[in-house]
Structure formats: C-alpha cells, structure tokens
C-alpha cells in the first residue's frame, strides 16, 4: 500500500517537473539575490566606516594602529591596546570554551544515557538565551568576587613566577573578560559541534569497534578525527562571536587601555571602547577616531577569519596526505 503511494507520488513529481524550467531559474536568481545582499551589506558597512573615519585616518595614519595613547582631552588616539585586548580576551575565551564545548558535545552524542541528552541540550541552549547585560552584572557581583578570592590567588601562588599570573589582583581584569566571553560562546560551540558529531555516520563507529577499539579510541579516531573540519568551523563561529562581544565584557574587563603581561591587570577591547565612548563623543576627531576603531574591529574580524580558514585548509591537506600514506 505504502509503496504504491510512493510510486504514484514520484510519477506525479516527474509529470510536474517536465513542462517548464522557469521555477528552477527563478529560484536560482532569487537565492543569488539573497546571497548578494549579504555581500552588499558587508561592503556598505566597510565603506561607511571608512567614510566616517577619513579625518582620523589622515591625521593619525598608521600610528593609529601602533600607538597606545587614548586621550580624548588632548585628542591623541591610538588603538593598539584595544586590538591587543580584543585578541587576548578572545584567545582566553577559545582556550576555555573549545575543549569544554567539544567535550560536552562528544559526551552528548557518544556517551550520555539517552534520557539525559535532551535535558542537557536544553540547558546549554538556555545559556545562549541569557542577555549579555545580565551575564555582565552576574560577572561583577558573583563571578569576580569568587575569582578574586579563590582561583586567582591559587594561580598566583603556584604560577606567580609566570608573568601571566603575576601582580596584584583587583578583580576586573583581562582574565575575567576572557572567562565571561568563554561562557557566552560555549553554547554556540557546543551546539554546532554536537550537530557535527551527530552527522558522523554510524558506520565509522561500528568499523572502529569491529577493529577492537575501546570507546575512547572509537570516539577519538572514528568520530572526532572524522569530524575535525566541521569542529574547526564551530570554533571559527565561536571566535567570530568572541571578537564582537561587547556588553558583558565591558562590565568585567576593567576598561583600561594598556598592554600588560599579567592577565590580572585590567584591559580593554575594541567593541568595549565603542560601547563606552560613542554616545558622549562631542568633537569631530574624537568621533572619527571611534569610527576608525569600528573599522579596525571590522578588519580584525575579517583578518582573523581568513587566517582561521587558511589554518583549516592546511590541516585538511595534511590529514588528507596522511590518509593517503
């Protein structure tokens, strides 16, 4: 019965598809137009940022990227500490969120009992729904006092000889900023990784077990290794969010434009200085400098993404050649 219906349906489809290809063409053009919208938007944003910052670009030139003074009174602007802060806080976030996210995804797809999977997934997705202002307030009132009293002194006591963990501990700092970003990008990395691991064919796992692999070996060789490229994509998605995170980071990073070796010192990010100073900037050159910060953030995001793509390609090529060998 079911089979005959299926046959009828497919023959009906064949009849309908025959007369005209107009639908296909229209669909192709429509999707092309949609895809182009994104490109046009990106170009427009870049152009607008460029236009808004021409004065600053002319006045400060390349020094804007290499100097560290940010003085709205004297109208001297340099973006280096903000670029540094954005990159370092995102790096800290990735170092924390990537192992955590991928391990969670592996547990959810490979090891967790079935009844536990859905509740855990829902919980993780709820984390993504928390507004960043709330996370920031939680950061100030709960996370920072706790970090300041327990983990930070511990790190300082045992690793204080490393410049990264030296110096006085005030609370708001680069490290705290990185941790709050990690919390914010964890859901996206976990969700995307989980989808990718779920799409690994069961044949892979069965083949590994058939060769006598343990559960860990099967997960490592047959699943994680197989899904490497996709997982890397998940990481890049997370990185994109990390670079642009604004509100929560602003509330815990300490907002001091400096380049310090210690992660316990306050820092500043490109997105934070925009959120902080854009509304009250009254002079032209000040506003233009902030526009240029936006342009730098735009450029940094594109550059980091390109680098990540390149890295991905090298890894893919390497593993392909290894597979051949």
């Amino acid at each position, binding site marked *: 019965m079911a089979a005959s219906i299926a046959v009828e349906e497919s023959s009906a489809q064949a009849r309908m598809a025959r007369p005209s290809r107009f639908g296909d063409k229209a669909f192709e053009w429509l999707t092309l137009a949609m895809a182009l919208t994104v490109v046009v938007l990106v170009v427009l944003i870049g152009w607008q940022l460029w236009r808004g910052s021409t004065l600053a670009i002319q006045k400060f030139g390349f020094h804007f990227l290499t100097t560290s003074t940010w003085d709205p009174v004297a109208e001297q602007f340099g973006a280096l500490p903000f670029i540094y802060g954005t990159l370092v806080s995102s790096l800290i976030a990735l170092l924390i969120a990537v192992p955590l996210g991928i391990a969670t995804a592996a547990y959810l797809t490979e090891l967790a009992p079935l009844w536990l999977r859905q509740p855990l997934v829902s919980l993780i997705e709820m984390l993504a729904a928390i507004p960043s202002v709330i996370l920031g307030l939680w950061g100030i009132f709960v996370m920072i006092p706790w970090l300041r009293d327990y983990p930070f002194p511990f790190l300082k006591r045992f690793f204080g000889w490393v410049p990264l963990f030296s110096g006085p501990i005030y*609370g708001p700092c680069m490290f705290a900023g990185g941790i709050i970003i990690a919390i914010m990008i964890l859901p996206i990395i976990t969700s995307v990784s989980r989808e990718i691991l779920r799409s690994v064919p069961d044949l892979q796992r069965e083949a590994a077990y058939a060769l006598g692999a343990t559960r860990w070996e099967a997960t490592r060789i047959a699943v994680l290794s197989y899904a490497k490229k996709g997982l890397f994509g998940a990481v890049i998605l997370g990185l994109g969010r990390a670079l642009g995170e604004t509100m929560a980071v602003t509330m815990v990073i300490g907002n001091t434009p400096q380049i310090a070796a210690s992660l316990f010192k306050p820092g500043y990010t490109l997105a*934070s200085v925009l959120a902080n100073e*854009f509304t*009250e900037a*009254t002079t032209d050159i000040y506003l233009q400098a902030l526009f240029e910060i936006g342009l730098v953030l735009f450029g940094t995001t594109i550059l980091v993404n390109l680098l990540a793509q390149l890295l991905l390609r090298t890894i893919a090529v390497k593993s392909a050649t290894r597979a051949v060998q």
Partner: protein
Amino acid sequence: MRQFGGMTKLQSPKILGLIVALGLSASASAQMMINGAGATFPYPIYSKWFDEYAKVDPSVRFNYQSIGSGGGQKQILAQTVDFGASDGPMSDENLGKAPGKILHIPTAAGAVVISYNLDGNPALKLDGETIADIFLGKIKKWNDPKIAASNPGANLSDKEIVVVHRSDGSGTTFIFTDYLSKISPEWKEKVGNNTSVNWPTGIGGKGNEGVSGQVKQTPGSIGYVELIYAIQNKMPYADIKNAAGQFVKPTIESVTAALETANIPDDFRFSMTNDPGSNAYPIAGATWLLVYEQQKDPAKGKKLVEFLKWALTKGEGMAKDLHYAPLPDAVQQRVLKRIDEIKS
C-alpha cells in the same frame, strides 16, 4: 491543529477591532510631537515632566531619547530634534557649527560623590588635593598621611587604594574632572577635563551602576558616582572640603547652595564646581536643555516655550523628590527671562 484554527477564529475579530480602534485613535487626535534627545543624567526628571505636562496640555506629546550628551549636541546641530539636552555646556567650536543661535537652558543640578569601600565604613573627610593625588595614582595606601590629616581617629589600614572610574563617556566624569582641574594644576596639565579622559590609574566601570558595583565588590576601592546611586546602594560617601575651607556633605541643599554662589554668565554656560559659598558642595554640575533662539516651526516653537516656562516653574518643584537640586529663585528668574527671548 484544530485547536489552533479555533483560536485564530476566536481572536481574529478581536485583533481586527484593535486595529480599527488604533487607527481611529491615531486619526482622531492630531497631536503635536516634540522630539528631543540627549543627556541620560536628567532623563528621570524629564520623563516625569513630560508625563505631568501631558495633563496640563494634552495637545502636545514629548518624545525624548536619552542617547547621551554628545548625541544630544549632535542632533540639535543637525536639527533632527526640536530640543537637545546636555550635561556639559556646548563648546564654542560646536556652537560655531550651528545654523542659528543655540540657547542653553539650565534645568537642574546634581552632585557627584566620592564613595569608598573600607572595613567598618568609617565616615571620611577629603580635600580636593588628596582626591586629585589618589586619582593620579600618587597616594597609594589608605593610611597615607594626607588622608589621615583630615581624618584623625579614623581607623585607616595600610590597604592599597583601588581607584574605580567611569569607563563610558559621561557628564559625571565631566563634572568630576572639571573639579579636579580647578583644584590641581598637575591634574589639569596631565589629564584635563572631558566626558572621558586618559586615566592615569584604576579600573573602569561602565555606568553609575558599574562603578558602584565595582566599589561595593572591591575592598579598598574608591570611586565617584551620582549622589542618587550612592543613596540607593547604601554606599558611604565622603564630606568634601570646599573653597571656603568647610567640609560639606553632598545633599540637594548643598548643591543648590553651590548654584546660588556660582558665577553664571548671561549665556548660562557655567561650571559650578568648587564654588565659593560656605555651604556649597564643590563637586556638582548642572544639566541643560538646548534650543534654537529662532524656532523654525512657529506652532511647535510656541508649544515648546510654554513647556519650558512650565518646567522652570512647576517642574522645578518636582526635582527634590527625584534627588535633583532645583535652580535657586534668582537663577530661575533669569532663565525665564531668557526663554521669553525665544522667537517663533
């Protein structure tokens, strides 16, 4: 599925009715809309005024976007709003860009208090020099002789001072750095006065809530916030030595006292920090509405003038309840006279 269909059937006449009603009410009342934008500090009192004024004159509605003083100045210059609002007076440079003469209408004033987090929350007295040295990073410990000198008997430990300042551009920072620039030549030269400055030391918190949160959470910290935030968060705040040599507690009265002795020029672009009055609290600032002397739209201009007069008389009476210092009578009369000069 059926249930869903049933619900939409039930709801659709209601929605239709709502749409019709909305359409009718929109067409029935051809209300005049007066748009404004700017400072966040006076937003609570302005929205109270707009609310109350709707009862006085139902034919006019106000729409105020608290986007910050910088935005307020920009928008009035671009003539995209009917009035602007700012926590600092406009610079000569910006006024020069205006297509017409812009009037500054002071509406209220507020205090910036120095709050701190010390064991036992002792009541502290501070003078301007000491505050400048703390925020310059020159005084590093709480038991520094300069702090101890004005606070005999206070139990000050050798705890390190953690400076907390605003990270966002803000009228509060403008008032505070204006005060420090007047008190300390070193501050004036090294840091200066603006809505954001290049801080020599400390941690930046976003907004009043960011600074008060940081101060509350960090032992040994010191920061500046608007008076209302210190009161709401039950934070201790210092008495400050004024120009007359008196230690004054920040209150609405001591801010109005500062306004009384402030040297206010005819264009109302004034600073009221470090005023000479013996009861004047020295770290305070006013907030202004910005309007064109020559209004483009006569009908709107007339309504705006009516509102400004109401605000400067009846409206001022509501200031205290919202922890703003109202203008003293003498200043109020001068401002009202200036409002009369608005032409429409």
